[in-house]
């Protein structure tokens, strides 16, 4: 059984050189920026599948950032969901100082201001 080495070469390009993206087509057409390894592989066509598979497996194992699938997507959504029970979230924070001032006047209460560099409820 024979595998087209262009596939392997493009695969290696993507994972080692980052020049192609198999998701978007250049993997199949070999029309991206080729490394010398890609070109060499095409000259030595055909290559036994066993060798190709071994090399491909070695290359795949180097892929540090695999494509996210639906399972990982759901797991990350759950992991990055804030805990609504956190204590600081139970405090009825206002974000407008003057709205708070008007409420304080009406309620006869003092103001508490949490003033930070960056918004305290956001990116800080």
């Amino acid at each position, binding site marked *: 059984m024979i595998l087209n080495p262009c596939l392997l070469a493009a695969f290696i390009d993507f994972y080692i050189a980052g020049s192609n993206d198999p998701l978007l087509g250049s993997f199949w057409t070999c029309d991206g920026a080729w490394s010398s390894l890609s070109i060499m592989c095409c000259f030595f066509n055909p290559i036994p599948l066993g060798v190709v598979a071994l090399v491909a497996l070695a290359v795949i194992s180097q892929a540090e*950032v695999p494509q996210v699938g639906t399972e990982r*997507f759901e797991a990350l959504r759950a992991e990055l969901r804030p805990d609504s029970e956190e204590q600081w979230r139970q*405090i*009825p924070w206002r974000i*407008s100082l003057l709205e708070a001032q008007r409420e304080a006047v009406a309620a006869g209460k003092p103001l508490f201001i949490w003033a930070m560099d960056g918004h305290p409820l956001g990116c*800080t």
Partner: protein
Amino acid sequence: MLDRASTFAHPDIVRHLTDAYIPVAIDQAYQRRQQDAEGRFYRKIAGQSPRNDFKKTTQGFYAATSGGALLFYNNNRDPDKVARLLVRALNAHEEGKEKETLAAAPIADGERDARYSPTPPAGGLVVRVHAKVLGGYPEETENRWTKIFQSALGRDNLWITKAEHDALVAGEFPNALLMRLARFHLVDNTRGEPPMWKPEELRDSLITFEDGVVKGKVLLEAADGKRRYEASLYGVVEMEGKRVRRFDLVADGLFEGGGRFTRNPPPGKFPFAVSFTLADGSEAADAIPPQGSRGWVEGYFR
């Protein structure tokens, strides 16, 4: 992060702020500069504290009467100390309450200083952004504050313009949206204010949007090579008529490095993820501007 998990996790403080005070959270970088009624009221209060140089940060905790008289200023997050100060200030407020009630009048917004009053784009979308370091910190620290940082969830908002909203409805994922999402939101904000990415630091990006599914990848790298994030993107976007009713996206990858205010990241490359989900307006934080828009909203949208 530290205040949320320490000071505002103290049950007495939560109770006092909920029952006896009107609590407000602000980014003082706006109020100490803005030339309008809100800025003047803030500076009236802060000006009575040691943080009265408005060219510098005035961050901290303030208690004040509704008329603007300072009851206390404190920039120490020790929960027991803050709890004591809250009680003392309440007592002082009670003692002077009658006089205060007579003196204080509601302050109208008046004309807002537009430079410091950004609002979400009309017809656009507000998306909640959460970020987390998924691993890589050295084993078990005994330091309480370090523990908080290491498990923190960063929070920000992504603003999407009406034109980008319309493009999503039409089945396109606009390049401008991908650029903004990457530059201002694929940042590690779990240990403080992060540096944003410059346009040229987005080295590579690819995105597809077919049948409501977003797939892609991004590579961000600082010019000095000391900060880097390579991630895959996956998301689901659903429409209802001419509106997006679901926008859920995750970025999953490897981050490296920190910034001036986000020091002590895990060593080397570490797993880091960012999630995006449509805001429904149920949280006060849904209304705050994106950190990346701070000081230059036009630059955020450009």
